[in-house]
């Protein structure tokens, strides 16, 4: 079945440093979504990427979808303590709504 690999599992950064998490799928994706989960909370939708090579920005966050639609990345510029949490990518292969395949997430730990 479809697998979505996400690295790194943990990332420690000093506040103000940049952070990147990477996602790779074993199959071509129709779209990829990114979620953030704060400790003790539930996943919260950040963005969806659909087009090959797509790049989207949300303030300090930059999301990319690879040309082959099999990989994606999330980059945070100048991290802040509010960025703490786990970032998940989630991929979909078909055109339906039969559930997402999630990566295992990257835990972002920020040291002030």
């Amino acid at each position: 079945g479809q697998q979505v690999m996400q690295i790194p599992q943990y990332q420690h950064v000093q506040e103000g440093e940049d952070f990147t998490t990477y996602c790779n799928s074993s199959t071509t994706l129709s779209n990829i979504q990114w979620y953030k989960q704060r400790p003790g909370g539930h996943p919260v939708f950040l963005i969806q990427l659909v087009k090959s090579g797509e790049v989207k920005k949300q303030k300090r966050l930059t999301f990319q979808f690879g040309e082959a639609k099999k990989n994606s990345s999330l980059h945070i510029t100048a991290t802040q303590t509010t960025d703490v949490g786990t970032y998940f990518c989630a991929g979909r292969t078909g055109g339906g709504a039969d559930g997402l395949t999630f990566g295992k997430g990257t835990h972002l730990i920020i040291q002030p």
Partner: protein
Amino acid sequence: DAGITQSPRHKVTETGTPVTLRCHQTENHRYMYWYRQDPGHGLRLIHYSYGVKDTDKGEVSDGYSVSRSKTEDFLLTLESATSSQTSVYFCAISEIGGGAETQYFGPGTRLLVL
């Protein structure tokens, strides 16, 4: 978040007992999902529903059943709970429109099976 509630929020039960978790949504969404979240595994799909009485299995459906008799309610049942089903369970809905999809998650249910 999209009017999703889950009940109970916490539950402790014993091995072999049946357990039912409820997901309730107020916005008439067609698609509903049950995921479990475990350390080192991320979120894994258990079952999903694409309409009343229309359900299908996900990646980790063994030991679980679901029912959806009304649009607003999606029930997850552990017929005979085992310790391996100790987990955090999240319900989610998909909001689809204009080619875009967003999944909204409920607050989660923490289940401990002793």
